[in-house]
């Protein structure tokens, strides 16, 4: 026997200026199933909520319809109020007479009639509502961080310090990411390694952090609070227990002509190598693709010279299983390159800059390596082609970025500031040199960043030319740079000794495979999509998976660190409760009528449906039916629409309820037609 209360909100003038709320309440009072109806100026206010609570008590209501704004705004508010009055919150629903009515119509009479209809439809639904209890899910109090750059490191440290055991997986032999490659950071010109390495050491020594380096996340299954992760520990060919990091093997290795990834190809390394002096862990790894022993069966010098017998050529990849409750994605970035070979055909290289064949046309990270004291030139600025000191350096902004024709429309955010930094550091090292910057805009909007670039111009003498560069070519050992200065209205030609391109920040290559496995949304550039661009910047589209750093969008170190701490705090919130509560608006299978065709299983986008065996007492399997995991189900209703036998329904949105609403509309239409 339905005893529903209808509460019509004026929402100040938002609804009342178009809809006659008093009349809506009056007519609602005589609807079948409605015991009590009233209107009020602000239903969501404390007195408004009190009105609902006292009405529930006084009139013994077993259903509530609040005719007001969108459920997105206040469904939680009103459900809480109902719960406080002792009514199951899922017996309280909202009819949207604001966004769906007063805000989109001008005709008062028709709008009022529509509001009455909207209330009646919702009353028909609520008459068929059932009380529901939230789904409770247990939580594994561990977290996974994918990526060991500054964002991953910060997130791991924050969660570990918050009492959570953290598994940190990094695909390179050492943690540190791109920040380890930088020489100095803007705007303070702090030595990058100096501020990074203490954090790296902290990670290595933290009792709550389990560090997997030279490892990748192979597979993730499960759901929020209950993820099952398989990590592939790639074979280093070095026994980490026995190795003492003396480095003798790296010195004796005869294969020395391999382009060094850490120096971005500006120097060579050996086949057995430690990526950089401050690497953590500070132990070598064998690059099997270039190792003579692995290619021909010969050599083995490293094994011979190793004092602790730590070399293990037979070592295999190892698969390790971990269980975690929360995941933070911090896979970082790569740089767009101007060569003819691009990772996909949406992108184009820069033929007009030589497609990468000029050795003295380099990118920003390569210039960092030249600046760095641990770099290929010991911190001296020298040309890759002939090792001479360049007297004229040209820096070019927006190479790839903001360039619709080449396939990237976004701004890479950090380049304007690091170009100013590069120019300054160059001038500090080569005071009689010239630094020219070709730019379209200068976007140095961080704290004290604008003052930083003005210092570059006003004190260090950088020359900023406002225009793009149309072509670069080599002539007599110099690079002719053909650009423009639109402020003067001329074309400008500069004879440079070195050209540094600020190439676009792009996500890691093939990262979409990991995101697909995790089941998180990403955009057309493969950046991770946040749950809400304004209000939920560190959550992915999937519950329990958070994001931090440049894998989300181009950003600098302070922003990455801030996002990492934010993601960590979100994870800590998630893991702080012993149990998770989820909305019970999930699918439910009628096992009696289910025919076991499993279309629903195939259709479910959240992979929430599994096969369940129905057994008799003897344990024999009689048949199989579908089973919904209420912890994973997102309540999308796809399964309901594909079920042949009408055996699956959505709690809170049952077929019975929906048909009741539709019937209400049809009845109304036939009345209108008469």
């Amino acid at each position, binding site marked *: 026997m339905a005893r529903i209360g209808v509460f019509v909100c004026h929402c100040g003038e938002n609804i009342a200026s178009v809809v006659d709320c008093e009349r809506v309440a009056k007519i609602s009072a005589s609807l079948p199933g409605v015991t009590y109806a009233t209107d009020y100026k602000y239903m969501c206010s404390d007195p408004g909520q009190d009105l609902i609570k006292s009405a529930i008590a006084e009139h013994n209501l077993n259903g509530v319809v609040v005719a007001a704004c969108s459920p997105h705004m206040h469904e939680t508010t009103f459900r809480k109020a109902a719960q406080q009055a002792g009514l199951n919150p899922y017996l309280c629903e909202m009819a949207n007479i604001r966004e769906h009515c007063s805000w989109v119509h001008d005709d008062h009479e028709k709008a009022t009639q529509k509001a009455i209809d909207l209330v009646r439809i919702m009353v028909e639904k609520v008459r068929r509502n059932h009380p529901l209890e939230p789904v409770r899910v247990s939580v594994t109090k561990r977290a996974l961080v994918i990526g060991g750059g500054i964002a991953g490191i910060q997130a791991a440290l924050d969660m570990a310090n918050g009492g959570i055991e953290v598994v940190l997986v990094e695909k390179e032999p050492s943690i540190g990411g791109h920040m380890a490659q930088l020489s100095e950071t803007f705007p303070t010109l702090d030595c990058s390694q100096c501020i990074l390495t203490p954090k790296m050491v902290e990670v290595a020594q933290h009792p709550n952090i389990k560090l997997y380096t030279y490892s990748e996340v192979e597979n993730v299954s499960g759901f929020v609070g209950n993820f099952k992760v398989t990590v592939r520990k790639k074979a280093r060919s070095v026994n980490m227990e026995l190795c003492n990091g003396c480095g003798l093997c790296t010195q004796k290795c005869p294969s020395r002509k391999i382009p060094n990834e850490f120096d971005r190809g500006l120097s060579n390394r050996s086949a057995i190598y430690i990526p950089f002096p401050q690497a953590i862990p500070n132990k070598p790894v064998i690059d099997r693709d270039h190792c003579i022993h692995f290619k021909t069966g010969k050599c083995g010098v490293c094994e011979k010279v190793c004092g602790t017998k730590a070399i293990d050529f037979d070592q295999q990849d190892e698969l390790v299983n971990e269980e975690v409750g929360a995941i933070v994605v911090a896979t970082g970035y790569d740089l767009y390159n101007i060569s*003819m070979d691009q990772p996909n055909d949406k992108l184009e290289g*820069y*033929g*007009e800059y030589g*497609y990468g064949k000029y050795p003295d046309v380099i990118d920003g990270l390569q210039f960092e390596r030249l600046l760095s004291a641990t770099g290929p030139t010991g911190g001296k600025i020298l040309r890759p082609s002939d090792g001479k000191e360049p007297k004229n350096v040209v820096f070019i902004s927006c190479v790839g970025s903001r360039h619709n024709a080449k396939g990237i429309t976004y701004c890479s955010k950090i380049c304007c500031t690091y170009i100013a930094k590069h120019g300054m550091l160059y001038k500090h090292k080569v005071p009689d040199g010239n630094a020219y910057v070709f730019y379209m805009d200068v976007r140095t909007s961080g704290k004290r960043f604008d003052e930083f670039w003005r210092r570059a111009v006003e004190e260090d003498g950088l020359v900023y030319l406002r225009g793009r560069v149309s*072509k670069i*070519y*080599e*002539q007599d050992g110099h690079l002719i740079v053909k650009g423009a200065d639109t402020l003067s209205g001329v074309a400008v030609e500069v004879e440079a000794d070195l050209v540094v391109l600020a190439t676009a920040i792009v996500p890691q290559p093939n990262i979409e495979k990991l995101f697909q496995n995790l089941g998180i949304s990403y955009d057309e550039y493969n950046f991770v999509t946040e749950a809400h661009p304004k209000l939920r910047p560190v959550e992915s589209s999937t519950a329990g998976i958070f994001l931090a750093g440049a894998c989300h969008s181009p950003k600098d170190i302070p922003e990455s660190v801030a996002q990492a701490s934010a993601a960590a705090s979100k994870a800590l919130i998630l893991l702080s409760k012993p149990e998770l509560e989820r909305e019970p608006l999930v699918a439910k299978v009628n096992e009696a009528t289910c025919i076991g065709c499993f279309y629903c299983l195939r259709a479910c986008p959240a992979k929430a449906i599994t096969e369940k065996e129905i057994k008799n007492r003897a344990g024999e399997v009689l048949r199989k039916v579908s089973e919904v995991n209420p912890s994973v189900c997102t309540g999308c209703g796809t399964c309901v629409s594909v079920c042949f036998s009408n055996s699956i329904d959505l709690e809170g949105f049952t077929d019975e309820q929906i048909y009741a609403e539709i019937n209400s509309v049809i009845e109304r239409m036939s009345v209108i037609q008469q």
Partner: protein
Amino acid sequence: MRFAYYPGCSLHSTAVEFDISTRAVAPLLGIELVEIPNWVCCGASPTHQRDSILSYALAVANFNKAELVNEQIGVQCASCYNNLRRALFELHHSDEIKKKVEKVAGLDFGNNVQVFHLLDVFRNQIGLEAIKEKVTHPLKGLNVAAYYGCLLTRPPEAVAFDDPEWPTSMDDILQTCGATMVDWPYKTECCGASLALSRTDVVQKLSHDILKMAKIHGADCIAVACPLCHSNLDLRQKSIEKKFAENLELPIFYYTQLMGLAFGLSGKELGLDKLIVNPWKLLEEKGIGSKKS
């Protein structure tokens, strides 16, 4: 392989040696060129600079005549190629423009016409293997700068069969013919084009820069695929030398002339006598080709 051959105005006059050498070389590679009867001028640059629709309409008139011979049109003049291809592009991409053009042309555009530059045909349809088989007198020791100019490669969506910044079709073909191709940065820089008559000073400057750049990079000669580029670099070379007080002495060949020499044809058969800058000193020095037929 059969093509409806569209020579364009220049190949019948100022670039007649391009026509002669093309007709000599094509049959050796199994290409039959049948000249489109009563083709009209494509309009070149002045027409599209005055009225784009008229330029496309002239193209449609030519397409109609070409279809009677073959739906595949073969062109050598880069400017004609560019005009015809751009017309095709616009006609395929905009119904509005197609209607307007058909109205002005008084003809329907049948969508089956295709336009190829013969450089594209040689490189991509005939292929380097087939060309290699015909080489009997490799152009050994000849350092050639392949000059593509503007209109063969730009705009990329409408016309390019090769990379617009670093094209290699001509380089590949001539290398197969035994020449040493020079790596130089001015492959697609503009020579001044249609400003030849009204602003000869501009052409002299731009063409001078191209000639000089080729020479600096070690070229003995330049190979071209465009009549206007050829005339700017060849016909006007002497006046350029005089104006800039430099000795350039760079013979300018049509690429088909070099191909023909590699295939053993004589200078006469390839119209080498029609070049303004005398090529014989260079060719004899390298032991390539003969004046006799």
